[in-house]
Protein backbone atom coordinates (compact mmCIF):
# COMPACT_ATOMS: atom_id res chain seq x y z
CA UNK A 1 0.00 0.00 0.00
CA UNK A 2 1.38 3.40 -0.97
CA UNK A 3 1.85 6.09 1.64
CA UNK A 4 -0.69 8.93 1.59
CA UNK A 5 0.49 12.35 2.72
CA UNK A 6 -1.81 15.01 4.11
CA UNK A 7 -1.39 18.42 2.47
CA UNK A 8 -2.74 21.37 4.41
CA UNK A 9 -3.35 24.42 2.26
CA UNK A 10 -5.59 27.39 1.56
CA UNK A 11 -8.23 27.30 -1.14
CA UNK A 12 -7.05 28.88 -4.38
CA UNK A 13 -8.74 31.25 -6.82
CA UNK A 14 -9.46 28.30 -9.13
CA UNK A 15 -11.20 26.49 -6.26
CA UNK A 16 -10.45 23.27 -4.44
CA UNK A 17 -8.48 20.45 -5.95
CA UNK A 18 -10.50 17.86 -7.83
CA UNK A 19 -10.57 14.37 -6.37
CA UNK A 20 -8.56 11.95 -8.53
CA UNK A 21 -7.02 14.93 -10.31
CA UNK A 22 -3.27 14.99 -10.98
CA UNK A 23 -1.48 18.20 -9.99
CA UNK A 24 1.89 19.65 -10.83
CA UNK A 25 3.17 21.27 -7.65
CA UNK A 26 6.07 23.69 -7.36
CA UNK A 27 7.36 25.90 -4.57
CA UNK A 28 5.55 23.83 -2.00
CA UNK A 29 6.78 24.98 1.38
CA UNK A 30 6.08 27.11 4.35
CA UNK A 31 5.28 30.75 3.59
CA UNK A 32 8.08 32.84 5.04
CA UNK A 33 10.55 29.95 4.70
CA UNK A 34 14.12 30.25 3.46
CA UNK A 35 13.35 29.81 -0.22
CA UNK A 36 11.02 31.98 -2.24
CA UNK A 37 7.92 30.04 -3.25
CA UNK A 38 7.73 31.94 -6.52
CA UNK A 39 10.47 34.08 -8.03
CA UNK A 40 9.29 36.89 -10.28
CA UNK A 41 10.86 37.64 -13.65
CA UNK A 42 10.71 41.36 -14.37
CA UNK A 43 10.51 42.25 -17.20
CA UNK A 44 8.60 39.12 -18.26
CA UNK A 45 10.13 37.03 -21.05
CA UNK A 46 7.99 37.25 -24.22
CA UNK A 47 6.31 33.95 -25.09
CA UNK A 48 4.27 34.79 -28.19
CA UNK A 49 2.17 31.65 -28.52
CA UNK A 50 -1.45 30.71 -27.92
CA UNK A 51 -2.35 29.38 -24.47
CA UNK A 52 -1.51 25.66 -24.14
CA UNK A 53 -2.81 23.21 -21.56
CA UNK A 54 0.06 20.72 -21.35
CA UNK A 55 3.35 21.62 -19.71
CA UNK A 56 6.32 22.01 -22.06
CA UNK A 57 9.76 20.60 -21.26
CA UNK A 58 12.37 23.33 -21.27
CA UNK A 59 15.94 24.23 -20.33
CA UNK A 60 15.81 26.72 -17.49
CA UNK A 61 19.10 28.38 -18.40
CA UNK A 62 17.98 29.11 -21.96
CA UNK A 63 14.89 30.88 -20.66
CA UNK A 64 16.62 32.78 -17.85
CA UNK A 65 19.34 33.92 -20.25
CA UNK A 66 16.57 35.14 -22.57
CA UNK A 67 17.86 33.08 -25.47
CA UNK A 68 15.65 32.68 -28.58
CA UNK A 69 12.57 30.53 -27.99
CA UNK A 70 13.82 27.86 -30.43
CA UNK A 71 16.57 26.95 -27.93
CA UNK A 72 14.28 26.41 -24.95
CA UNK A 73 12.84 22.99 -25.72
CA UNK A 74 14.12 19.60 -24.55
CA UNK A 75 12.94 15.97 -24.64
CA UNK A 76 9.51 15.33 -26.07
CA UNK A 77 8.82 19.06 -26.40
CA UNK A 78 11.93 19.41 -28.57
CA UNK A 79 10.81 16.51 -30.73
CA UNK A 80 7.34 18.03 -31.00
CA UNK A 81 8.80 21.35 -32.06
CA UNK A 82 11.09 19.66 -34.56
CA UNK A 83 8.25 17.65 -35.99
CA UNK A 84 6.36 20.79 -36.79
CA UNK A 85 6.94 21.64 -40.36
CA UNK A 86 8.94 24.86 -40.37
CA UNK A 87 7.03 26.31 -43.28
CA UNK A 88 3.72 25.45 -41.68
CA UNK A 89 4.74 27.35 -38.56
CA UNK A 90 5.95 30.31 -40.60
CA UNK A 91 2.73 30.47 -42.60
CA UNK A 92 0.74 30.37 -39.38
CA UNK A 93 2.83 33.09 -37.75
CA UNK A 94 3.79 35.28 -40.70
CA UNK A 95 1.58 34.21 -43.58
CA UNK A 96 4.74 33.57 -45.59
CA UNK A 97 8.07 31.68 -45.33
CA UNK A 98 10.63 33.00 -42.83
CA UNK A 99 13.14 33.72 -45.60
CA UNK A 100 10.65 36.10 -47.19
CA UNK A 101 9.44 37.60 -43.90
CA UNK A 102 12.90 38.81 -42.90
CA UNK A 103 13.45 40.52 -46.26
CA UNK A 104 10.34 42.67 -46.55
CA UNK A 105 8.20 45.32 -44.89
CA UNK A 106 8.20 45.84 -41.17
CA UNK A 107 10.59 42.91 -40.58
CA UNK A 108 13.10 43.81 -43.27
CA UNK A 109 16.64 43.16 -42.03
CA UNK A 110 15.81 41.21 -38.86
CA UNK A 111 18.04 38.23 -38.08
CA UNK A 112 15.54 35.41 -37.86
CA UNK A 113 12.09 34.14 -36.98
CA UNK A 114 12.27 35.03 -33.27
CA UNK A 115 13.30 38.58 -33.97
CA UNK A 116 10.60 38.89 -36.63
CA UNK A 117 7.97 37.73 -34.14
CA UNK A 118 9.26 40.25 -31.61
CA UNK A 119 9.17 43.08 -34.16
CA UNK A 120 5.62 42.23 -35.21
CA UNK A 121 4.45 41.80 -31.61
CA UNK A 122 5.76 45.24 -30.75
CA UNK A 123 4.28 46.84 -33.87
CA UNK A 124 0.76 45.43 -34.07
CA UNK A 125 -2.13 47.41 -32.66
CA UNK A 126 -5.87 47.59 -33.05
CA UNK A 127 -7.75 50.37 -34.82
CA UNK A 128 -11.50 50.79 -34.47
CA UNK A 129 -11.77 51.01 -38.28
CA UNK A 130 -10.65 47.38 -38.64
CA UNK A 131 -14.18 45.89 -38.32
CA UNK A 132 -15.40 48.19 -41.10
CA UNK A 133 -12.62 46.99 -43.39
CA UNK A 134 -13.38 43.40 -42.52
CA UNK A 135 -17.04 44.02 -43.30
CA UNK A 136 -16.03 45.34 -46.72
CA UNK A 137 -14.32 42.04 -47.47
CA UNK A 138 -17.41 40.15 -46.34
CA UNK A 139 -19.81 42.30 -48.38
CA UNK A 140 -17.68 41.68 -51.45
CA UNK A 141 -17.89 37.94 -50.71
CA UNK A 142 -14.20 37.17 -50.40
CA UNK A 143 -15.29 34.12 -48.42
CA UNK A 144 -17.12 32.78 -51.48
CA UNK A 145 -14.04 32.73 -53.68
CA UNK A 146 -12.79 29.31 -54.80
CA UNK A 147 -9.84 27.71 -53.04
CA UNK A 148 -8.60 28.47 -49.54
CA UNK A 149 -9.93 32.02 -49.21
CA UNK A 150 -12.67 30.88 -46.84
CA UNK A 151 -10.10 29.18 -44.56
CA UNK A 152 -8.12 32.38 -44.06
CA UNK A 153 -11.24 34.52 -43.97
CA UNK A 154 -12.47 32.41 -41.04
CA UNK A 155 -9.07 32.60 -39.35
CA UNK A 156 -9.06 36.37 -39.71
CA UNK A 157 -12.58 36.64 -38.36
CA UNK A 158 -11.87 34.41 -35.35
CA UNK A 159 -8.64 36.24 -34.55
CA UNK A 160 -10.33 39.65 -34.64
CA UNK A 161 -13.22 38.48 -32.47
CA UNK A 162 -10.79 36.91 -30.00
CA UNK A 163 -8.77 40.08 -29.95
CA UNK A 164 -11.73 42.27 -29.11
CA UNK A 165 -12.55 39.93 -26.22
CA UNK A 166 -9.07 39.43 -24.80
CA UNK A 167 -6.75 42.12 -26.26
CA UNK A 168 -4.07 39.51 -26.94
CA UNK A 169 -1.26 40.44 -29.29
CA UNK A 170 -1.10 36.81 -30.42
CA UNK A 171 -4.57 37.24 -31.98
CA UNK A 172 -3.40 40.27 -33.94
CA UNK A 173 -0.38 38.26 -35.11
CA UNK A 174 -2.72 35.52 -36.30
CA UNK A 175 -4.88 38.15 -38.00
CA UNK A 176 -2.01 39.76 -39.92
CA UNK A 177 -0.80 36.33 -41.08
CA UNK A 178 -4.33 35.53 -42.31
CA UNK A 179 -4.42 38.83 -44.22
CA UNK A 180 -1.17 37.94 -45.99
CA UNK A 181 -2.45 34.46 -46.83
CA UNK A 182 -5.71 35.89 -48.20
CA UNK A 183 -3.77 38.21 -50.48
CA UNK A 184 -1.88 35.23 -51.85
CA UNK A 185 -4.69 32.71 -52.28
CA UNK A 186 -7.37 34.80 -53.96
CA UNK A 187 -7.70 34.30 -57.73
CA UNK A 188 -5.54 36.72 -59.79
CA UNK A 189 -8.53 38.44 -61.38
CA UNK A 190 -9.82 39.49 -57.93
CA UNK A 191 -6.58 41.08 -56.74
CA UNK A 192 -7.63 44.59 -57.69
CA UNK A 193 -10.88 44.14 -55.86
CA UNK A 194 -9.47 42.84 -52.56
CA UNK A 195 -5.79 43.60 -52.06
CA UNK A 196 -6.23 47.36 -51.41
CA UNK A 197 -8.63 46.50 -48.58
CA UNK A 198 -6.30 43.79 -47.26
CA UNK A 199 -3.35 46.17 -47.28
CA UNK A 200 -5.45 48.79 -45.46
CA UNK A 201 -6.14 46.17 -42.81
CA UNK A 202 -2.40 45.72 -42.34
CA UNK A 203 -2.01 49.49 -42.14
CA UNK A 204 -4.71 49.72 -39.49
CA UNK A 205 -2.98 46.92 -37.54
CA UNK A 206 0.07 49.17 -37.32
CA UNK A 207 2.08 47.34 -40.02
CA UNK A 208 2.60 50.27 -42.36
CA UNK A 209 5.62 48.95 -44.22
CA UNK A 210 3.89 45.62 -44.75
CA UNK A 211 0.81 47.41 -46.09
CA UNK A 212 2.94 49.27 -48.55
CA UNK A 213 4.83 46.17 -49.66
CA UNK A 214 1.64 44.19 -50.13
CA UNK A 215 0.10 46.83 -52.34
CA UNK A 216 3.30 47.45 -54.27
CA UNK A 217 4.21 43.84 -54.91
CA UNK A 218 0.79 42.32 -55.44
CA UNK A 219 -1.05 45.10 -57.23
CA UNK A 220 1.91 47.19 -58.39
CA UNK A 221 0.30 50.27 -56.81
CA UNK A 222 1.91 52.69 -54.39
CA UNK A 223 0.28 52.77 -51.00
CA UNK A 224 -1.86 55.78 -50.17
CA UNK A 225 -4.08 55.74 -47.11
Amino acid sequence: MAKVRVVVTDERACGRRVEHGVYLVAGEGEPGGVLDLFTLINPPIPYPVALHRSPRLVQADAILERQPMETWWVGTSLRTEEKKNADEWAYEMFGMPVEKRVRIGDCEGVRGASEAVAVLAAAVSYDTRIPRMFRTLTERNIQELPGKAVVYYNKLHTALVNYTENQQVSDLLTAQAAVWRLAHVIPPHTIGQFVPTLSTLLYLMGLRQDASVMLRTITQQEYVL
Partner: protein
Amino acid sequence: MKVTSLLVCVGEKYYKLHQVINEYKRLGVSKRIAATSIPEGLQEGVSKVFVAHPRAIVNVSDPKTLRELADFLYQWHYVGMMGDPLEEHMLSIAYALSELSEKEPGVYANAESTFGLTYQMGIIGYAPFSGFQLVLKESETDLPTELDHMRPLVDAGVLELVHVVYEEGSNG
Protein backbone atom coordinates in the same frame (compact mmCIF):
# COMPACT_ATOMS: atom_id res chain seq x y z
CA MET B 1 24.22 17.68 -17.20
CA LYS B 2 21.34 20.08 -17.69
CA VAL B 3 18.20 19.37 -15.71
CA THR B 4 14.85 19.48 -17.42
CA SER B 5 12.36 22.12 -16.32
CA LEU B 6 8.73 22.85 -17.19
CA LEU B 7 6.84 25.75 -18.71
CA VAL B 8 3.12 26.09 -18.04
CA CYS B 9 0.50 28.66 -19.03
CA VAL B 10 -2.09 30.06 -16.65
CA GLY B 11 -5.28 31.25 -18.33
CA GLU B 12 -7.22 34.38 -17.51
CA LYS B 13 -10.42 32.47 -16.85
CA TYR B 14 -9.61 31.91 -13.19
CA TYR B 15 -6.60 34.12 -12.67
CA LYS B 16 -5.93 37.75 -13.38
CA LEU B 17 -2.22 38.49 -13.44
CA HIS B 18 -2.11 40.05 -9.97
CA GLN B 19 -4.03 37.11 -8.53
CA VAL B 20 -1.53 34.62 -9.97
CA ILE B 21 1.39 36.55 -8.55
CA ASN B 22 -0.20 37.01 -5.12
CA GLU B 23 -1.30 33.41 -4.87
CA TYR B 24 1.88 31.79 -6.18
CA LYS B 25 4.06 33.92 -3.90
CA ARG B 26 1.94 32.83 -0.95
CA LEU B 27 1.17 29.21 -1.77
CA GLY B 28 3.46 28.16 -4.62
CA VAL B 29 2.26 26.68 -7.91
CA SER B 30 -0.45 24.03 -8.14
CA LYS B 31 -1.74 23.25 -11.59
CA ARG B 32 -3.97 20.43 -12.70
CA ILE B 33 -2.56 18.48 -15.62
CA ALA B 34 -3.62 15.43 -17.60
CA ALA B 35 -2.32 12.19 -16.14
CA THR B 36 -0.80 11.48 -19.55
CA SER B 37 1.21 14.72 -19.36
CA ILE B 38 3.53 13.61 -16.55
CA PRO B 39 7.04 13.99 -17.95
CA GLU B 40 10.24 12.24 -16.93
CA GLY B 41 13.57 13.69 -15.92
CA LEU B 42 12.46 16.30 -13.39
CA GLN B 43 14.36 16.70 -10.12
CA GLU B 44 12.68 17.94 -6.98
CA GLY B 45 14.06 21.27 -5.87
CA VAL B 46 16.37 21.52 -8.90
CA SER B 47 14.02 21.62 -11.88
CA LYS B 48 12.04 24.82 -12.24
CA VAL B 49 8.43 25.35 -13.16
CA PHE B 50 8.09 28.51 -15.26
CA VAL B 51 4.72 30.21 -15.46
CA ALA B 52 3.45 32.23 -18.42
CA HIS B 53 0.42 34.53 -18.35
CA PRO B 54 -1.41 36.11 -21.33
CA ARG B 55 -1.34 39.62 -19.79
CA ALA B 56 2.30 39.76 -18.73
CA ILE B 57 3.46 42.31 -21.29
CA VAL B 58 1.62 45.53 -21.99
CA ASN B 59 1.81 47.42 -25.26
CA VAL B 60 0.65 51.01 -25.60
CA SER B 61 -0.61 52.24 -28.96
CA ASP B 62 1.10 55.14 -30.67
CA PRO B 63 1.09 58.13 -29.95
CA LYS B 64 0.70 57.23 -26.26
CA THR B 65 3.82 56.06 -24.44
CA LEU B 66 4.58 53.61 -21.68
CA ARG B 67 5.78 56.56 -19.60
CA GLU B 68 2.38 58.24 -19.91
CA LEU B 69 0.69 55.00 -18.89
CA ALA B 70 3.01 54.66 -15.90
CA ASP B 71 2.28 58.27 -14.87
CA PHE B 72 -1.43 57.56 -15.18
CA LEU B 73 -1.11 54.46 -13.00
CA TYR B 74 0.99 56.36 -10.49
CA GLN B 75 -1.97 58.69 -9.87
CA TRP B 76 -3.86 55.65 -8.70
CA HIS B 77 -0.98 54.54 -6.46
CA TYR B 78 -0.75 51.16 -8.12
CA VAL B 79 2.86 51.17 -9.28
CA GLY B 80 5.62 50.75 -6.76
CA MET B 81 8.66 50.94 -9.03
CA MET B 82 8.84 53.78 -11.50
CA GLY B 83 12.55 53.95 -12.38
CA ASP B 84 14.16 53.99 -15.80
CA PRO B 85 14.25 52.30 -18.17
CA LEU B 86 10.57 51.77 -17.64
CA GLU B 87 10.54 48.55 -19.71
CA GLU B 88 12.46 46.86 -16.88
CA HIS B 89 9.42 47.37 -14.68
CA MET B 90 6.97 45.89 -17.15
CA LEU B 91 5.67 43.30 -14.70
CA SER B 92 4.90 46.04 -12.18
CA ILE B 93 2.93 47.93 -14.81
CA ALA B 94 1.06 44.80 -15.94
CA TYR B 95 0.37 43.95 -12.28
CA ALA B 96 -0.95 47.46 -11.62
CA LEU B 97 -3.27 47.30 -14.62
CA SER B 98 -4.54 43.88 -13.57
CA GLU B 99 -5.29 45.11 -10.06
CA LEU B 100 -6.90 48.26 -11.43
CA SER B 101 -9.18 46.20 -13.69
CA GLU B 102 -10.51 44.44 -10.60
CA LYS B 103 -10.69 47.33 -8.13
CA GLU B 104 -11.65 50.16 -10.48
CA PRO B 105 -13.17 48.62 -13.63
CA GLY B 106 -14.41 52.00 -14.90
CA VAL B 107 -10.99 53.61 -14.58
CA TYR B 108 -9.41 50.58 -16.21
CA ALA B 109 -11.83 50.71 -19.16
CA ASN B 110 -10.91 54.35 -19.62
CA ALA B 111 -7.19 53.52 -19.56
CA GLU B 112 -7.71 50.66 -21.99
CA SER B 113 -9.28 52.91 -24.61
CA THR B 114 -7.11 55.97 -23.94
CA PHE B 115 -3.85 54.07 -24.23
CA GLY B 116 -5.00 51.46 -26.78
CA LEU B 117 -3.73 48.69 -24.52
CA THR B 118 -2.78 45.32 -25.96
CA TYR B 119 -1.25 42.39 -24.13
CA GLN B 120 1.24 39.69 -24.89
CA MET B 121 1.94 36.37 -23.23
CA GLY B 122 5.10 36.34 -21.16
CA ILE B 123 6.90 34.27 -18.55
CA ILE B 124 6.37 35.98 -15.21
CA GLY B 125 8.30 33.77 -12.81
CA TYR B 126 9.25 30.32 -11.63
CA ALA B 127 9.14 28.05 -8.61
CA PRO B 128 11.29 25.05 -7.72
CA PHE B 129 9.63 21.79 -8.81
CA SER B 130 8.12 19.85 -5.89
CA GLY B 131 6.39 16.90 -7.54
CA PHE B 132 3.21 15.47 -9.01
CA GLN B 133 0.33 14.72 -6.69
CA LEU B 134 -2.81 12.65 -7.10
CA VAL B 135 -5.66 13.77 -4.86
CA LEU B 136 -7.47 10.92 -3.15
CA LYS B 137 -10.94 11.05 -1.67
CA GLU B 138 -11.04 11.41 2.08
CA SER B 139 -12.25 7.83 2.43
CA GLU B 140 -9.46 6.34 0.30
CA THR B 141 -6.20 5.11 1.78
CA ASP B 142 -4.68 3.84 -1.45
CA LEU B 143 -5.02 4.20 -5.19
CA PRO B 144 -8.55 3.11 -6.16
CA THR B 145 -8.97 0.25 -8.60
CA GLU B 146 -10.16 2.49 -11.42
CA LEU B 147 -6.82 4.34 -11.30
CA ASP B 148 -4.68 1.21 -11.24
CA HIS B 149 -3.07 2.25 -14.54
CA MET B 150 -1.25 4.93 -12.52
CA ARG B 151 0.21 2.40 -10.07
CA PRO B 152 3.61 2.23 -11.85
CA LEU B 153 4.01 6.01 -11.45
CA VAL B 154 3.10 5.80 -7.76
CA ASP B 155 5.44 2.84 -7.17
CA ALA B 156 8.27 4.66 -8.95
CA GLY B 157 7.81 7.65 -6.68
CA VAL B 158 6.87 9.95 -9.56
CA LEU B 159 3.30 10.46 -8.38
CA GLU B 160 2.52 11.10 -4.74
CA LEU B 161 -0.85 10.25 -3.22
CA VAL B 162 -2.27 13.03 -1.09
CA HIS B 163 -5.26 14.00 0.97
CA VAL B 164 -5.89 17.73 0.85
CA VAL B 165 -7.10 19.51 3.95
CA TYR B 166 -8.11 23.16 3.68
CA GLU B 167 -7.29 25.70 6.33
CA GLU B 168 -10.43 26.75 8.14
CA GLY B 169 -11.85 29.95 6.74
CA SER B 170 -9.59 29.93 3.70
CA ASN B 171 -11.26 31.35 0.65
CA GLY B 172 -8.40 31.72 -1.77
